[in-house]
């Protein structure tokens, strides 16, 4: 028998062990290891949701260039057509499609509708999001 001490998980996590409540760890939900599809969907939905909020603020800041006249805006449009930004647009689209479609599933199942079909709905969301992402991604790159 060999023994290793846990670097991050010292006994402080469970003071005295007996009868104590585990310490609240705000980020425990993020761990995707060994999780099933529904759990992964939940992590994706939350991360994408936070990402979309950040994007919304960025978007508003960018729109404020409009107040600095047509030249500033044209300059921004040229920048937005760079390959890096186009690639990021595809990531944005993936997040929107995934969050939006999965959100519809969560909202349906979460209000007691189609509860027994939740797995089928999840598969449907994945397929539909994939197809729409392919079409949308192609359009972003072509147009």
């Amino acid at each position, binding site marked *: 028998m060999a023994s290793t001490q846990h670097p991050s998980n010292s*006994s402080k996590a469970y003071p*005295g062990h007996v009868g104590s409540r585990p310490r609240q760890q*705000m980020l*425990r939900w993020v761990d995707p290891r060994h999780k099933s599809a529904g759990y992964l969907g939940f992590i994706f939905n939350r991360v994408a949701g936070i990402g979309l909020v950040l994007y919304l603020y960025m978007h508003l800041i960018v729109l404020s260039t409009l107040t600095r006249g047509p030249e500033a805006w044209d300059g921004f449009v040229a920048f937005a057509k760079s390959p890096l930004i186009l690639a990021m647009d595809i990531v944005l689209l993936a997040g929107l499609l995934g969050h939006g479609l999965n959100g519809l599933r969560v909202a349906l199942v979460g209000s007691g509708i189609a509860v027994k079909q939740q797995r089928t709905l999840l598969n449907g969301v994945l397929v539909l999001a994939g197809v729409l992402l392919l079409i949308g991604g192609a359009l972003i790159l072509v147009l």
Partner: protein
Amino acid sequence: MSWTINVTIERHIVARPVTTDRYTVEIEPHRNILDVIEKIWAEQDRTLTFRHGCHHASCGSCAIVANGREVLPCIVHVEDTVKKDGGTLALGPLRNFPVIADLVVDMEPLFAVMEKAGMPIVGPADPLPGQPEDDYNAFENCIECGICMSACPVVATDSEYMGPAGLAAVYQSINHTADASERSRLLDMVDTPSGIWRCHVAYECSELCPSNVDPAGKIMTLRRMATFRRIRRLLGIKEKKEATHGIDTTPVKQ
């Protein structure tokens, strides 16, 4: 033929830092994980603390985390978890419960909710004649193992949340009574931010429950009941005993 597997076990010992102990175990792959634990205890380390009762998934007392997933070690085969001769088996206590020692957790958070739900621990389990099998999904199937609480991302971050097993218990208690005021009281208890509305529909509880209780499905059905009740109240429709939203409310004989 035996496999030689590398087992790691989280050791939680009072007033000591948590450590991981390693053991090499020879065991036939068709044996259960609980056999591995008992073999280590019998042959290598008498200080190892673990809990078990029936050895056949009836008592729910042995639940642990094996290779990242919550299991009842008494019914999970070594070959299904370790996969190959020479493979690794990492064992730890259930998550989201206070650890008492090594693989043993304090089940109080679960039992406290169960008590609030008024759920008899022992109850009839077979569907009555004429009762639809799949809607029944007897809650008495719940062996109070705590696997759903350990697997739930919401329990992991919110100690106020009633949790999958407790909410499923309330669903079943509602099903067990035809008394409208009692049903209403039970629904009041879960129609709260820390009750049915706290769930984020990750469905990990239903995925891992060893007794097919489908706690997530029960939570969603409770939400439907609560929503319908709100709509009825909004429209001023009087509560009727018959308004069951497709749920079988035949009282079960105790």
